[in-house]
């Protein structure tokens, strides 16, 4: 009964929001004005929409938000206020996130939203820089002897409800002329127990999620994440259209940790770089003017971000890396100089 009501209500909601979307952009085309930034300054805090997920956004024992997405939101707070606490986190489910952003309840989403053309074109949103490269993969039992996804022909695959996972699976199977039997599960727990109980041969979801799922199994070492990625999931922050100045702030704040890692500046050694003579580092750290003057931020905001939040490696290692229980491999999220895809345009 409740389920039916929920579905009806979601349908009604979808109808409402899609109607409201074109007119609903509260900022309009401001022509240089930045109502978002004005509102943030007046409120004294950034409002960041997140979605709970281990390693990306979870409250710790003391009720403080922690995670990879959370740290990028804190970086924004540091850039604007030099204080990682001046941020309010609004948790959304996947269905709610866009209406939350649209209604102006949050200033940005940093919640694992994948950039797709239809989202960018139809929903009047802008995406910031890609700060996490993910892709859909498979988790299988080692006993299955499968070493790549095409060996899973005829397999029963558990997927989560309400995601595009199933679509990607079907595409992949058709492309490779194999068959999958997708089983849609209510949530991750059900999928995990199905895999452990042998009712599924594999779980398919985003790669970062797979590492998390693996740690939820009773005997994680008996399972392996296959190397294949059957979809591209570039994750970026999302803002409303019509506020270019705010979009630029989000752009450069999300790039700064990447550039810092490339320069070898991290949370521990940032202080020593105050005396550096390298002109590009001096510009990046705001020791010489010019690089990010137009943003209207403190000239040394990059230094503050690195000191208080860290460079990309600090953020990744702290929340997702091998020192955490999730132990996610950097993979594509290595610097371009190390064979990954992370590449920041120059701060110049």
């Amino acid at each position: 009964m409740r389920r039916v009501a929920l579905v009806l209500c979601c349908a009604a909601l979808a109808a409402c929001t899609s109607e409201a979307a074109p007119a609903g952009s509260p900022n309009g085309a401001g022509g240089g004005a930045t109502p978002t930034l004005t509102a943030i300054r007046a409120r004294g805090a950034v409002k960041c929409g997140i979605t709970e997920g281990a390693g990306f956004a979870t409250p710790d024992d003391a009720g403080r938000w922690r995670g990879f997405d959370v740290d990028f939101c804190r970086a924004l707070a540091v850039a604007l206020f030099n204080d990682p606490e001046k941020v309010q986190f609004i948790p959304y489910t996947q269905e709610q996130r866009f209406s939350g952003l649209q209604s102006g309840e949050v200033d940005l989403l940093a919640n694992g939203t994948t950039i797709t053309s239809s989202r960018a074109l139809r929903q009047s949103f802008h995406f910031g820089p890609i700060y996490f490269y993910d892709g859909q993969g498979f988790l299988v039992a080692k006993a299955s002897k499968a070493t790549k996804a095409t060996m899973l022909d005829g397999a029963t695959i558990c997927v989560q409800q309400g995601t595009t996972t199933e679509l990607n699976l079907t595409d992949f199977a058709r492309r490779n002329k194999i068959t999958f039997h997708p089983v849609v599960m209510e949530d991750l727990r059900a999928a995990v127990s199905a895999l452990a109980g042998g009712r599924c041969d594999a779980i398919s979801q985003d790669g970062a999620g797979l590492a998390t799922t693996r740690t939820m199994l009773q005997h994680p070492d008996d399972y392996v994440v296959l190397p294949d990625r059957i979809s591209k999931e570039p994750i970026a922050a999302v803002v409303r259209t019509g506020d270019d100045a705010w979009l630029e702030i989000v752009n450069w704040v999300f790039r700064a940790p990447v550039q810092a890692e490339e320069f070898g500046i991290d949370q521990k050694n940032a202080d020593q770089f105050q005396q550096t003579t390298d002109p590009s580092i001096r510009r990046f750290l705001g020791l010489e003017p010019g690089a990010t003057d137009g943003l209207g931020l403190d000239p040394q905001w990059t230094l503050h971000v690195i000191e208080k939040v860290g460079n990309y490696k600090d953020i990744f290692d702290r929340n997702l890396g091998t020192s955490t229980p999730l132990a996610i491999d950097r993979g594509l999220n290595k610097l371009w100089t190390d064979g990954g895809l992370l590449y920041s345009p120059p701060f110049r």
Partner: protein
Amino acid sequence: MSDHTVRRTRWSAVRDLLRACFATPSAAIVTIIAIALAAAAVIPIARWALVNATWFGDATDCRRAATGACWAFVRHKAGFILFGLYPAAQRWRPGIAAAILVALVVCTAMPRCWTRWLLAAWALGLTVAVFVMRGGLGLGVVPTQQWGGLPVTIMLTAIGLAGGFPLGIALALGRRSRRPVPRATATAIVEVVRGVPLIAVLYVAVLVFPLALPAGLSVDKLFLAQAAVIVFASAYLAEAVRSGLQLVPPRRLDAGLALGLGWWQTMQRIVLPEALRTVLPSFISIAVGFFQDTSLIVIIGLFDLLNTARSAAQDPNWLGFFTEAFVFAGAIYFCGSAALSRYGLWLERRMARVDPAMRVTRPLSLSVAAPPE
């Protein structure tokens, strides 16, 4: 049922029970099968929850033991599950607020407290509780987004029912009114609210409503949720009250009017006390229902008790201990609901003692009016 009290020792009761269970061979077989089934269910649970459980340590200790419950997780996360995102150093504040609300509820549950002072106590208690939670005047302000856990569950339920009660009475009286306008209005409100699921209203209130507001203006989610719970509680309580009113013979009203009392006075002193008393048991089941339904606010991203439990098991350091988290939250819900049910039974017995036929011989003052001399 058995008003005549037979004095028996505890042992003779056990002997009677055994005798009844093994009276005939077939009874004995049924008893043994029942015991075997119970043992088959209880032993694995006990093994999981007690024998093989891990009480101390961290997640790796729990995973090493693997076959038992990880109570170390609950020990570690209890603070978060109970208080949610509220800053850890300030958890005494929601603690106090919850205690005030529970005290108000307990007091409201005592017939001897049913005086005009109760209203004042609620007004004062709520003000203090909300102030302590929210802060201000020197106390650090904690926005409602950070409220969570058990205090929020208690608050939504208690304020929802307390706020819904007077509204519910008004709706019930309106629905029985002879005048068409109040009757139509009350009927429409009650039917619409009862015809729509709470979850849908929460969705609309939090997702669609903000789109209609001017930019930058946002209404507090917790406030909206609380308002929704009050409106829902009032509609459900209204129907209970109305069924109570139906049971009061119309001649009571006539008698009151004949004595020269006004309509309001008759209602307040004669009809309502009797009606409310009759439907107390359904109040209790409505209360239990709302206590559990408040967990629906998870939909709108608020951290009530159930959501904090779920969230605790998503911490990378304690990933996947959902069973323990839900058992812990479930135990709290069970205690709350069981206490309410026991109270309901006690109240019914007390009422029956006052008047075995559950009919009013002495008007019981439930209203704010002074008891008749």
